[in-house]
Each structure stands twice: as C-alpha cells, then as structure tokens.
C-alpha cells in the first residue's frame, strides 16, 4: 500500500510565548522571566495504514500529546497537515471529520460528572445524526456491552464507576462515533496493572472486530510492544526512529531509542536491570543544535553538533535520524 490511509505531512506546532504559573510566581518574586515560543512538534511526517496501530513513545514533554491532538483535528498545526484518505482533518481551524476520535489518559477528567453514562455515549452520535433519538437507548446499551460493561449502567453517573470502568465508558463514547481512527493518549497510564490488562485486551479485541486504525501514545514501552505493529520514537518534537516494534526494541537504530529501552526497569530478581540515560531532558525553549540528542549521546561526534541528521531509511522498513545509526548496538 503506497498511499497512507492516515497521512501526517510535515506537521509542526509552535506555541506562542505565554507565561506559565511558575514564571508568574517567579516574576512576582522578582526573578527575570523571558517568554519564548515552544516548538513542540517539528516537521513530523508519518503515515499509518488502514487497520494499523502505530505506537508513539518518548520522554515527557517531547510533543506526543501535541502531535496526537493535531492528528485528531483538535489542535491546528502551525505548519503541515493531516489527511485521512486524502481529506484534511481540519479546515479553518476547525475539525472537519468525526472519523477520528480520541481517548485520553484521565478517565476521571474526561467524563462530564453530571451526565448519565447513556447520555455521555449518545450525545455525539445524536448531534451528528448517527443515531435516531428513538434508538439512542439501545444504542448506548450496545456500546456498553461492546466494551464489556453491564448495559444497565446507562442510567449511572461517572462517580459510580472505578477507574477501569470509566476508561471503558470513555472508549465506548469514542467508538460510538463510528470512527476509523482512534487516537489514544496514555489510555492505561492511570490504571492499576490488573485493570490495565483488561483495557489492553479490550483494545486488542476492538481492533480485530472493528478494524480500527490507531495512534497509541504511551510511555509504557511494554504496552506499546503488545499492541502496536510499528513504533515511532520522539525526541524534542521530532521523530528520531520509526520501524516495526519488535525490531526496534531488539535492535534500535537510534542511540536515544536504545537509551530509552535500557532506562526502563525490567522484571528481575537480580537487582538493577536498567540503566539511566545521562543528563536531563533539554528545555524545548532552548533545544540543542543539530541533533538535539547530542549532549546526552554516547556516540556523538563533532558532526552531530553541526548538521541535523535526517530521518533516513537505514534498513528496509527502518528509519532513524542519526549520523551513526549503523553503529548503534542492540539493546542489552
């Protein structure tokens, strides 16, 4: 398939200067505050095939959620565009499609506490004429059943549910819009391990049954490996590696990917089965030149400070933005 089903073309997002709470406090305490624009996402191009799940991983603040919101048509990009089967997902700063829906991390914040679960699920579909008012009741019940909840829950309120159950409701609400694409932003991060497994299984089943295409944002590399065929690794607003999940984890082509994989503690009785990445995440207000990873990179050479590495094909199906991609050794 040459044409991508979902095409992200050179998407950039820049946030205009704004004083955060911290800066406002600092300003009041007499600190010097300088407002600069944040380049949250820079020239990201990706395509997702129909029915594919693409994982998006990277450290906090690297731009995953921003990219996710642009892809979902919630946030206008400052450059580039996103198309679903050739159709732009946004026009004049407004979302133009219901075919992309989102599920967010916090199932507590994303549901209206005063709305019954049934209304929560049918609100969007009614507004877009996807279901008739007379059928709304059975429609909501069917979706609750699909996500593994008791259909009689339609009359309940969000506070009557556990975290895992609320996340199911949020998923049901997204799916009730009959989307082709689901953008999931850390959908299992706030859940307990045993409940995480239930939601991961639900996603596996829904993908099979509904042929969903997914952009799955997570900091949990294990969950991404389990759910996604391919993974994109992001660092300071750019994609630095892209490839089939299993291959990327076993033999990363970017030093950052390798470092990220090794920083995750593995289950082991023998103590320290992880290795921290040196240094802190640089500020997106003042990103390092050329390859943004060079100050933390064990392989960095002079060229890495001067010339930005392009995201290039290193092996068939494998891309990495690193001058020394061929020399990255497999993850320990």
């Amino acid at each position: 398939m040459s044409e991508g089903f979902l095409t992200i073309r050179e998407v950039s997002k820049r946030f205009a200067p704004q004083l955060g709470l911290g800066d406002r406090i600092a300003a009041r305490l007499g600190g010097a505050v300088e407002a600069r624009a944040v380049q949250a996402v820079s020239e990201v191009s990706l395509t997702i095939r129909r029915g594919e799940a693409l994982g998006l991983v990277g450290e906090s603040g690297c731009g995953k959620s921003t990219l996710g919101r642009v892809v979902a048509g919630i946030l206008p990009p400052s450059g580039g565009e996103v198309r679903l089967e050739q159709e732009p997902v946004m026009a004049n700063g407004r979302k133009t499609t219901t075919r992309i829906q989102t599920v967010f991390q916090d199932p507590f914040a994303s549901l209206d506490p005063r709305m019954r679960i049934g209304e929560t699920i049918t609100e969007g579909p009614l507004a877009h004429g996807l279901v008739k008012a007379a059928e709304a009741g059975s429609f909501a019940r069917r979706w609750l059943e699909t996500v593994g909840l008791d259909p009689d829950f339609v009359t309940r309120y969000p506070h009557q549910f556990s975290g895992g159950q609320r996340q199911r409701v949020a998923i049901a609400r997204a799916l009730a819009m009959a989307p082709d694409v689901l953008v999931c932003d850390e959908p299992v991060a706030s859940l307990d391990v045993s409940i995480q497994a239930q939601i991961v299984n639900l996603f596996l089943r829904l993908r099979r049954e509904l042929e969903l295409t997914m952009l799955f944002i997570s900091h949990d590399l294990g969950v991404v490996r389990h759910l996604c065929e391919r993974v994109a690794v992001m660092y300071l607003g750019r994609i630095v590696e892209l490839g089939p999940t299993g291959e990327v984890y076993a033999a990363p082509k970017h030093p950052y990917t390798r470092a990220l994989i090794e920083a995750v503690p593995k289950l082991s009785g023998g103590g320290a089965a992880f290795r921290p990445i040196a240094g802190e995440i640089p500020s997106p207000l003042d990103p390092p030149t050329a390859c943004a990873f060079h100050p933390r990179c064990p392989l960095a050479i002079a060229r890495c400070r001067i010339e930005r590495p392009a995201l290039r094909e290193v092996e068939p199906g494998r891309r990495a933005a690193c001058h020394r991609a061929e020399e990255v050794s497999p993850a320990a």
Partner: protein
Amino acid sequence: MTEPVLQVSALSTHFFTKAGVVRAVEGVSFSLARGEVLGLVGESGSGKSVTGFSLLGLVDPPGRIVSGSIRLEGRELVGLPNDELRDVRGRRIAMVFQDPMMTLNPVLTIERQMRLAILAHERASPRAARARSAEALTRVGIPDAARRLDDYPHQFSGGMRQRVAIAIALLHRPAVIVADEPTTALDVSIQAQILAEMAKLVSELGTSLIWISHDLAVVSALSRRIAVMYAGRIVEEGPTAVVLDEPRHPYTRGLLDSLPSRAEPGRELAQIPGSTPSMLRLPEGCPFRPRCPRASPACTVMPEPTGDAVRRARCHHPLVLTPAEAV
C-alpha cells in the same frame, strides 16, 4: 542474624468512617535488616500508603493504629507520646512521598527549608546548616547545589524536586526511609536516574528502605525482598527473584501474568477476573476468594501465613509449581 532495624508485628490500622470501619491495614508483620531494601507492592487501595503512614505515626483521625507493634531500633513506636514521636520522625525514620510538594513548602527557598529540617533535631549555625544542605543536594545528584540552595521549589523540574525531597529525608541519616511511589509521577528516564541514585545511597549510608510501588518492575529493580499486599494484608513475602519466578499466592501469580512484558505481543493478556473489593465489604475469609481460580470452601476461613522466616504466603492453596508449569 543481627537484630532487625525495624520489626513490625501484627499491625492493624483502621479508619472509623461514617460508612463503616475501613480495615486499611490488617495484621501486617515484617522485619527489615540494616541496609535492606524491601519492596511493597499491591494495587490501588491495598493499604501500602497507610502502612507507610503508620510507621511514621502519621495516621490522622478517623484513622488510628488499633493494634500491633512497630519496633524501630529496639524502641516501640506504637503508643509513643507525640513529642517523642516527632523526635524520632525525620531523625531515625523519614518518608518520601509521591508528590514532593508534600515535603516542600512552595514559599520558602530550598536553603530555608533544609535549615529548618536540620534545626528540628540539631543545633547548627546558619553557615554549617548551609554547607550541610549543599552537601546533601550534591549527594542526590543536583548539579551546582550551592547555588541552587537559594532557589524556590518551582524553579526545579519535577525530578529535581523529588531529589530535594530525598535529600531532606537523608539529612539526619535515618535508620529507615519509607519511599511511597516517589518516581511514579516522573518520566522513565528520570525514574531510572533516581532509582540508581537511591540504590547507591542506601548501600553507602547503610540506610534501610521500604520502597512502595504498584509497579513490579520498579520494585524488582531495587529490592532484594518484596511483600505483596492485597486488601490490607501482606499475602506473600520473600526474596524478589523467588517470588517473581515462583509466586505462591494466586494473586501474585495473577499480577505477574497480566504484565505485557511476560506475554507474546498481540496475544490476550491474562486477566484477574472481577475487581478490587470494597474495603468496607470484604468477603468472609480470604479477601481474594471471589477472584481466585484456586478457591475452595476452605477459603471462607481466613488463611494464616505459612512458610518460614524467608518466604511466606497467606493462602490455603498456595501454588506449587512443577518445572513444566513454571515458564
């Protein structure tokens, strides 16, 4: 074996709420040797934090320790008057919270709060306190510590703030530190840095550590021994490697089986059926009974811990694995 630093016996902490009595911690016993790291795992609401708060005497009404004993360096803490407890807290036992702002005061400079923490238990000149604070910050990996002392908490990143909280906990070189999910809100890379530093500090200073987390991998990376909590009780305890390889309690087994890292990609994950019970309406007998694949009528009676000092489980039908099953 030498005398343990901390010996907790049959500790129960309950909350007397309008809706009923919440038995948040029930009959918890464990001991901690000098320099030992014990991991405490379990799902949300299982009683991990309340166990930690109980050790520091930080349980507030409507909750209280209803029975049991906490011996720290040979001294009984349960029933100790408040002023004596305050003297022990911070000096011999300290806590690091998930949110570093539980420790830090947003309107004071780091220097000021560290000085207050020092003066709570010792006399020190401002100059000596400053030098000691700078040294403590350097020890937890804060670059340029002497200068950063004059900063306010908001001028630090989340990871750096947590390091400051750890530095404060370490100020008086306590015998025991209780760390309640201190890396859960942090990024993987920063979590790894803090875990590595913590492991180093503990072995350098001989401090004993109780590391609370719901993440089995994090706990296993740091601790030689783990205790698994379910509904207020420790249901399994033993050397980390052994518990992970051969869990005896069906709940531990269920937790391990539900991890994606143990499964083949794309395959259904094993699920523990049902959901966490309400602490107000625990089933009779073993609280895991309604969700347990091994439950029998015997399980309507609360199982007592079986095993030895090294390895214990609270189950009528502990898993005895044949090599073929133990993949």
